[in-house]
């Protein structure tokens, strides 16, 4: 195919992925070859009614690592993420097959309470969604509803806000509405709210897609800090972001069904982020990260 009227200087190919790999903020960080499995998805299949959304995904999420799920729209990466804390239970008609193990326990066995699961495995959403309450009450909401035993709620709120690198900006106006904050601050408030219930896994569903570059960079810095204490799984559309912050990357793609044409998401490749961005094993991964499709 020839393009008429434009002279493209952009050469998609080998150069881009290497640049991305070099972007990794701490390339020196030691990463074991095999992740220490805090969570794993085994033969995970998700259906919405008759629609087969995710096909046979096997993934391991390493303790104190950031795992990025990337891929084109409709590849099922958000669906996989929402299986990890059973948020998919809330979607009418959703059905999950396979196992999601958390500390070796399958979250989808009968006697597991999804409420308890969501307390241990927190979630940050795409659009900042603070409650229409004060900043303080936003953070205190989780501990209150889960009946957490806390000596001092004030201390807990401060700790959580410090943990989300928001304390200095809001310490003088804790009683003000959360809606008085900027978008980036609101998203950090949502992170503070999540860590206030002391989870050990934090799931993030495109947490920066509604934010400007400066707010994004602050959230990314925050995630690198949070990694010390939490296991983080992030879905992102931004490949630079995945390259910058994640330790391991899983690439998903959507494959149309031959008979129905429905697009089912499947896992193509999962490896260390550096490996994925510098030397992907699968042709489809290479095409995606070099910008040839998606």
């Amino acid at each position, binding site marked *: *195919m*020839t*393009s*008429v*009227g434009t002279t493209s200087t952009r050469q998609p190919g080998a150069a881009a992925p290497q640049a991305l790999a070099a972007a990794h903020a701490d390339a020196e960080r030691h990463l074991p070859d095999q992740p220490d499995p805090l969570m794993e998805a085994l033969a995970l299949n998700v259906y919405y009614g008759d629609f087969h959304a995710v096909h046979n995904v096997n993934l391991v999420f390493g303790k104190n690592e950031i795992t990025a799920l990337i891929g084109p729209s409709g590849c099922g990466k958000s669906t996989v993420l929402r299986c990890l*804390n059973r*948020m998919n239970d*809330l979607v*009418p*008609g959703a059905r999950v097959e396979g196992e999601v193990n958390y500390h070796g326990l399958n979250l989808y066995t009968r006697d597991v309470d999804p*409420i*308890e699961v*969501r*307390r*241990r495995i*927190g*979630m940050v*959403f795409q*659009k900042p*969604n*603070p*409650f*229409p309450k004060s900043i303080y009450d936003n953070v205190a*909401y*989780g501990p209150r*509803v*889960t009946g957490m035993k806390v000596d001092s709620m004030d201390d807990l709120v401060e700790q959580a806000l410090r943990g989300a690198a928001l304390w200095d900006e809001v310490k003088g106006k804790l009683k003000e509405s959360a809606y008085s904050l900027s978008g980036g601050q609101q998203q950090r408030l*949502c992170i503070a*709210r*999540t860590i206030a*219930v002391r989870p050990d896994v934090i799931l993030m569903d495109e947490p920066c897609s509604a934010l400007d570059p400066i707010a994004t960079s602050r959230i990314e810095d925050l995630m690198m800090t949070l990694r010390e204490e939490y296991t983080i799984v992030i879905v992102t559309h931004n490949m630079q972001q995945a390259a910058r912050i994640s330790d391991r990357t899983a690439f998903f793609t959507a494959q149309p069904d031959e008979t129905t044409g429905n697009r089912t998401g499947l896992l193509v490749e999962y490896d260390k982020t550096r490996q994925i961005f510098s030397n992907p094993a699968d042709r489809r991964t290479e095409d995606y990260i070099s910008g040839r499709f998606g």
Partner: protein
Amino acid sequence: MAVAAPQRAPEAPTQLRPGRGRDRSPLSLFFVAGLWLSLALAIVFLMTLILTTAIDGAPRLDANLFTEYDSTLFPEKTGARAGILGTMWLMVATALLAVPLGIAAALYLEEFADGRRWYNRLIELNLQNLAAVPSVIYGMLAVAFMSLVGRNQTDIVIGGALALALLILPVIIITTREAIRAVPTEIRDASLALGATPWQTAWRQVLPSAVPGISTGTILALSRAIGEAAPLLLLGVAVSVRFDPNGLLSAFTALPIQVFNWTAASQDEYKTAAAAAIIVLLTMVLLLNGLAIYIRNHFQRRW
């Protein structure tokens, strides 16, 4: 694959056509005139009604109207004291019956019911139909219910409240559902993702956010109920009462009933009193609606 050379884009006009941005074709002018006429007609009718009533009733908008009971001996001093008090009792009792029930039903349908189950769909269908049932039918229902629970005297406050509560229940349920639906899913997701139960989420997030919408809908429903006479007549509510209602089991009369009675009387004094009572009733409705507007403007949440 061969790609055709791109077509030259058609020459863009360099001058903008003058005009005032209004559609001036005869058909649209005719249409707009029709719309204005409909609006004007509605307002003219309403204004005529209010003005003639106000002029008719003005002589009797005196203290006696509020302090005196209905009088057959002195038609010029007859009063709506029993009706005004009765209507107030009736409204409070109606609200107490209908509001909790309506909110609970709406909360169930929006937050907990699986909309794909046949019984929930049946309930939905019934709700839509209930809103269209004539008010007399609710009066019959209330009579039937009262006799079921063993009360043959139906002309009491709780009987009227029952009929009116049934009458406005569908309206309350429908408006509450709208208010609940307006609370963004993100808020529910955020609450649930923190480990809150669906019940906690409904109680602590959804309901408080929906309160402005719910109260507006409820007040508007009540202001519809306040003017109802038909179901009360069916219950046999007295047209002339010479005592204050003093409880839910007390016999009573209501403003619309008194108006109904007075307009049917032959003496002109009663007709004047009826017009005055209508003004009182209208003022009550307007106050309720004003309250609804105030709540909507001051407590509405913007997401």
